[in-house]
């Protein structure tokens, strides 16, 4: 390669790297009110351990918190004060209706201090607890916790599901609320869950295979409910009945609407004008990917008859919580990795001279590509497991580059020219580099495809990082070495090699 061409390439490469570096790591600053510049690193989605999350406590019917009890008591006392003597207050006395139990107050319908909690309530709560726990497990969040609190409430913790506070809060509220849905799935034309309709199909395993999510293009995401053979026939039958009733009675608008309820909650309502013979039904409603996944999990959890919750839960209040690894955990991790990368790059240049410079370009390309991937791919959420995966993949990339450089050095020591040494050194390290990356890529993919939760995310991050490491080791670093070596006059000194001169006799 000519010197001019190489200089142009180096300048272009440097400008691009500097630009992407600026976009990736610059701290947030205001641009034009009300906008501010946010770097790629600042929009990385972090898990509960690094960025905090939300928690809620589910109170089943008949169970209230101390704060709620105190509110009821204050209300009763106020009403009592304003009630004339001899008259009964318009509100019930909470002292008569609720009894303290640990940090809670239980209704006297389900609890008495002598006999304890009724067996029926215990059984229903255990069933509800099992199902709610299974819903959180099935949602595949990177980090979550479900705890049994004070024996009869459920405390659930989840990570932030979006970058902005408002989106994150609304998604958390949506998830907490939907995971508390009770009752089974019903397809009916009734205008409310309690009313009876002309047609009805229960969403049990007899009729429903399962629910999943699908990208619905402009209208966001949709939830797909797939029918069994019997379900398809039943759905055809009820839609046929609805279509014929709507055509015979044009004045009735409700007769042609098919509603899908889960317990008392309306999931969707759609007008039916013709008999529908189809294997699945799509529920749309401006769902985001997260909210659609939540809905699919709730539907799947209600298909098995044993998994239907009979208890109803109060609409939960939710609280934001700090990161479990510490308030400044994410900043600390980023700063430590940044300093170590800098130290490693300086060491590389000192040790390998020109080859270290090529490594700097290769590694920066890798690091920036990793930052771009983890910040722009929306499904990725970084937890401490993800941090370990990035660290390991980075060490593998550095290790493979050093291995290639050492091979070049060894080849040069055999008396070959520098160009031949580079070619031969890379050739010698090619098989090992490919094998190492291939097996780790396979292992990462297996983890991503089979595991769930934090391990799935760790597998995804590792797979991405290993793929980028292979690309940057085998192509970018080598290309950079090639263009850098076109520059100096004394190429051998540039890469820090020495060749003993033999005098002609």
């Amino acid at each position: 390669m000519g010197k001019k061409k190489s200089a142009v390439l180096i300048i272009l490469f440097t400008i691009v790297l500097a630009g992407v570096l600026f976009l990736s790591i610059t701290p947030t600053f205001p641009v034009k009110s009300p906008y501010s510049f946010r770097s790629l690193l600042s929009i990385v989605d972090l898990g509960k351990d690094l960025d905090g999350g939300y928690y809620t406590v589910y109170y089943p019917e008949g169970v209230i918190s101390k704060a709620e009890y105190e509110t009821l008591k204050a209300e009763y006392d106020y009403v009592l004060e304003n009630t004339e003597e001899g008259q009964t207050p318009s509100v019930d006395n909470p002292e008569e209706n609720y009894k303290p139990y640990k940090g809670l107050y239980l209704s006297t319908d389900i609890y008495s201090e002598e006999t304890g909690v009724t067996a029926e309530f215990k059984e229903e709560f255990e069933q509800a607890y099992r199902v709610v726990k299974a819903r959180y497990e099935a949602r595949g969040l990177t980090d979550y916790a479900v705890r049994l609190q004070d024996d009869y409430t459920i405390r659930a913790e989840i990570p932030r599901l979006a970058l902005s506070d408002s989106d994150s809060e609304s998604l958390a509220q949506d998830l907490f609320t939907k995971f508390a849905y009770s009752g089974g799935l019903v397809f009916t034309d009734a205008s409310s869950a309690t009313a009876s309709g002309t047609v009805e199909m229960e969403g049990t395993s007899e009729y429903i295979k399962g629910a999943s999510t699908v990208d619905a293009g402009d209208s966001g995401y949709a939830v797909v409910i797939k029918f069994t053979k019997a379900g398809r026939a039943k759905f055809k039958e009820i839609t046929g009945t609805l279509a014929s009733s709507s055509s015979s009675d044009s004045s009735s608008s409700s007769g042609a609407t098919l509603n899908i309820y889960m317990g008392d909650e309306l999931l969707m309502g759609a007008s039916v004008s013709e008999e529908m013979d189809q294997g699945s039904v799509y529920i749309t409603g401006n769902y985001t990917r997260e909210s659609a996944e939540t809905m699919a999990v709730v539907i799947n959890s209600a298909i098995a008859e044993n998994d239907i919750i009979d208890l109803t839960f109060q609409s939960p209040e939710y609280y934001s919580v700090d990161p479990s690894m510490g308030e400044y955990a994410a900043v600390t991790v980023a700063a430590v990795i940044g300093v170590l990368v800098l130290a490693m790059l300086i060491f590389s240049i000192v040790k390998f001279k020109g080859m270290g410079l090529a490594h700097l370009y290769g590694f920066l390309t890798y690091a920036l590509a990793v930052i771009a991937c983890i910040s722009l791919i929306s499904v990725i959420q970084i937890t401490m497991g993800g941090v370990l995966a990035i660290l390991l993949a980075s060490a593998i990339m550095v290790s493979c580059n050093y291995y290639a450089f050492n091979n070049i050095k060894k080849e040069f020591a055999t008396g070959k020219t520098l160009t031949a040494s580079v070619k031969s050194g890379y050739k010698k390290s090619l098989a090992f580099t490919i094998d190492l990356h291939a097996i780790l890529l396979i292992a990462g993919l297996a983890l991503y495809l089979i595991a769930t939760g934090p391990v799935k995310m760790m597998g995804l991050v590792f797979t991405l990082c290993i793929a980028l490491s292979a690309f940057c080791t085998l192509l970018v670093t080598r290309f950079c070495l090639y263009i850098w070596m076109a520059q100096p006059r004394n190429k051998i000194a540039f890469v820090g090699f020495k060749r003993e001169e033999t005098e002609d006799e």
Partner: protein
Amino acid sequence: MNNIPVKKRLFICLAISLVLIIAGAFLLGFLGFNPDRDTKDRVSLQVTDNGYMAIDPDFRDSLRSFCETKISAGGFSVTDVAYASESSGGSGSLEFVLDGASEEKLASFVGELDAALSSAQYGEGTENAGTYKELSGVSVTYHTSGYVLHTEVIWRAAVAAGVAAVLLLAYVAIRFKVGMGVTSLVAAVHDVLLTLGVIALVRIPVGMSLVCVAVFALLLSVFLNLKVFGKMRKDLLLEDRKELSAEQAVALSVKESRKGIFVADILVASAVVILAIAGLFVGFDMFSFMLGALVAILVANYSALVLSPAIYTLIKEKSDANRAKRAKYNYASEKAKKKNAKSEDKVPAAETGEAQS
């Protein structure tokens, strides 16, 4: 260690590993892992208010320190304090996690703290002076909660790790040697189990992220073992290495790959150690997580440099012996073949001799 015969070395390695794994498993069976802050069954005291804590951080700090003093005076030990703000309504809550508090004692203490908050003054001499109760309607309660194991996450991670290990065996067996594949598989399983065993044994506090540490141990084990086997694969093809015994050839390759292993170690371990130290200041959970990762690094090194070479030496010795046996057999058959060929050569020579005469 290199002076010890390979069989003895392997026996010592496996004995050490087995003792640690079994001891860890016993401790795990009896006590479980040492749970971290997130996974501990907890008894906590919760102070909630109507939102004043969210508006006035000074009030929150004052309330926190007042409660902490009262809780300590009540004979309880606070291990952690977490502040949470209600996203929908704005009320705040301070949760004091207590160590070893009995429920009965706590139930009576809740009333005492409530009474103290009703009488203690905040902001005396200022416009907004008043008792904590008057200013923010604080309410005190206590909770007990038990952690629930993420069984789905654990068993699916175990299945995924198992599948990854089998794929590793297949890949290394095809691309390297069958013996190396078997050794990598044994090393990977050993590393994961030993990491978990040591973490259980030295009582490092762990939570759900322990699964990630186990996966990290697996991936690191694959990386370091392949680094050694990569060098070995290349070296064993060299003419001068073919002359050496299996033990010598393996030992030489391991010695030469040590530098590369240490470089990789330094890269990962330096980040892990610094993050562990930072964790002491930022959050103890980060410290304990990184300590777990450090155990994984040490175990993977031990297995790549000591255990795997010992296993592979034995496998190689066996396979070399088998090959020699086969070669010996072939040599005999070759002799017979040569004899046959010679006798066949004599016949046409005799025939040609006859023809000439």
